[in-house]
């Protein structure tokens, strides 16, 4: 049996952009700022497409959740080679309060609906840095999970994942269906070539709402404030160890 793969992609502020906090501290400035696909999601899409090219998967479905602009990210995924897209539309006001818990429920419902047996996500989004969605999705579905994947091998019902963990590399065998989260060294994503960008325009993109999937977007988390990290103060130079000790004592540190 071949896999039907669901890949989650998120539209985030481009990682090269210098982030600016809004004056009212309610969040970061997104107006007129360059956005692109979350880098780890790109790696996830690339892996899914490679599985299809190697004939281990029959179909790659790209999914994104968010307001209208999120569709741009779907187009990129389709241009890379995903077969079709699903946009779960969440209005901007609700989207601010949406996090891994809600997204994981959406992915779970979609996986059931689309009869997918493999979900590949980026390990974390570079804006939230939560690193929770893949794990929560697996929990909701009660599926096996292989997170921080730096290598993926599919053989029939068995999925072998090499994980990057603190102590080094861990290899685990999972029984499908499974959720995998992609880490940096899993692969090098391809460029979307112009002929494929053209082909992508004809690929189907379905639009849904969370309500259509019966998912409640209510969140028990409220963002109180977003602030810059404290400015790093300049250090001072001292002439010798005596002066160093003196300064440390002055500061009450010894």
């Amino acid at each position: 049996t071949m896999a039907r793969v669901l890949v989650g992609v998120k539209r985030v502020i481009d990682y090269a952009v210098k982030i600016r906090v809004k004056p009212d501290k309610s969040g970061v400035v997104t107006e007129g700022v360059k956005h692109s696909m979350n880098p780890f999601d790109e790696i996830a899409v690339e892996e899914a497409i490679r599985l299809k090219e190697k004939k281990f998967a029959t179909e790659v479905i790209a999914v994104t959740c968010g307001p209208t602009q999120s569709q741009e990210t779907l187009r990129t995924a389709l241009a890379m080679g995903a077969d079709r897209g699903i946009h779960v539309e969440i209005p901007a006001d609700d989207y601010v309060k949406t996090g891994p818990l809600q997204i994981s429920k959406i992915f779970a419902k979609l996986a059931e609906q689309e009869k997918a047996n493999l979900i590949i996500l980026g390990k974390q989004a570079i804006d939230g840095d939560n690193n929770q969605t893949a794990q929560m999705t697996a929990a909701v579905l009660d599926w096996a999970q292989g997170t921080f994947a730096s290598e993926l091998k599919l053989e029939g019902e068995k999925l072998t994942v090499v994980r990057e963990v603190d102590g080094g590399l861990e290899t685990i065998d999972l029984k499908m269906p499974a959720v995998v989260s992609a880490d940096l060294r899993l692969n090098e994503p391809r460029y979307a070539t112009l002929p494929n960008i053209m082909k992508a325009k004809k690929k189907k993109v379905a639009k849904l709402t969370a309500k259509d999937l019966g998912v409640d977007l209510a969140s028990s988390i409220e963002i109180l404030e977003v602030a810059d990290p404290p400015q790093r103060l300049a250090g001072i130079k001292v002439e010798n160890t005596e002066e160093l000790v003196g300064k440390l004592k002055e500061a009450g540190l010894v």
Partner: protein
Amino acid sequence: MNLARSFTALNKLLGFVQISRTCVAQSHSQPALTAETYNVKRGNYSTANASDLDAFRNIVGDNNVVTEASELQGNNVDWIKTVRGQSTVLLKPKTTTEVSRILKHCNERKLAVCPQGGNTGLVGGSVPVFDEIILSTQRMNEVISVDPFSGVMVCQAGCILEKANQDLLEHDLIVPLDLGAKGSCHLGGNISTNAGGLRLLRYGSLRGSVLGVEAVLADGTVLDCLSKLRKDNTGYDIKQLMIGSEGTLGFVTAVSILCPQKPKSVNVVFLGVDKFEDLLLLLRKAKQDLGEILSAVEFVDSDCIGLVGKHLKLVNPIGEYEFYMLIETSGSNSQHDEEKLSSFVEDIITSQLAKDGTIATDFNKMQSIWKLRESVAEALTHDGYTFKYDVSLPAHVMYDMVHDTRKHLKGLYNSVVGYGHLGDGNLHLNVTCPEYNKTIASAIEPFVYEWTAKHNGSISAEHGLGFKKRNYISYTKSKESINFMMKIKQMFDPNMILNPYKTLPGNID
């Protein structure tokens, strides 16, 4: 490795080698001394002595007078390692006043001076030929003022281009020029050489964007033309003489530049075609469909992509083609720009004007694609000794020069590549060979200059004349204009101490 290369080269050139004057200049060791490689005689200058050094120490401080040979190695050799001077003194002033006092002293003592910024020049203009005193702008790196409303930045000549850009970011401004050397080049040097670069297409030449220049003349006079005004038609525009005169008429100490707005939306497209004519058709279509947002149009040939892949491991994002084109757009509205780009791209793919291509979707990819173009010069340094030519030609004959050069140099070269600023009619023709030798040198020159002159082109579009091209100026400029250039030089610098052996032809010195 060096020995093996010499033998291979020798075998290749058997029958052509002139034993008496073969100079070996491998890419990773010191090049031969300019004075021994080229036919140039030291001018009638004094030699710096102990009391000169004391005078300098008095002006800039002990730490800023460098006389240690090992410390001066880098300052005596150009970036592409083709020329080497013999200076024993490097001075590092911090203020215009210090520069003025130094030059006054040098003028009185008839000591030759070599102005040096980031030392990224490609015609040997930024390093000494003999024992000229190197006068460096490396400590003159202050940004004096930025006016966020007019966009005018005033800064010292030693500001590094890339750093100036970073400083301007907080005002949403950018420096109106960009080139591969941005991490090292100094704005003073850019202005002194009228640097062109990757965005001349969009922001024009420095002759337009530089509003003011402060320079110190040979006798120490400070010429303050440091205006911040966009329009000022009062008398002769002397700062234009400082721009592009390569440090031979004055030592630029500060500049005032009109900086454009940082674009809100940038896109990069990389295309592949198999015929040079198709590049020109694409260029025309790009101007028609993307005109007002076009910010760069560059091309590289397949050899270039091969070299950056081989020596720098850079990956080609599309298939293999004879020519590649990089188009960059910069605008104020990403939606509008993406629409324009989208319909342009659809047209060229449907009509097959471009065989293949990619649009960079994030900054990372944009930088990777730019790297393919910007790293060609570096890749060439790994390919052997490089002869660099930078010519302006009519668009339709541009690549013919590459073909003809390959034919003319058959059997003598490692690579002959063509790349450059397609949008400005500026070809970078580069020839690499195992090692420098007079055979290949005399085969290449004056062939390339004659070829250029035959098509009424410029023998140096943006690199300047420096040391290496000074004697070919007559291929592009008339005898009368060269004579007037000499008159102007004599008026500004009667003792000829500023950057001698550069820019103007040697037989007139």
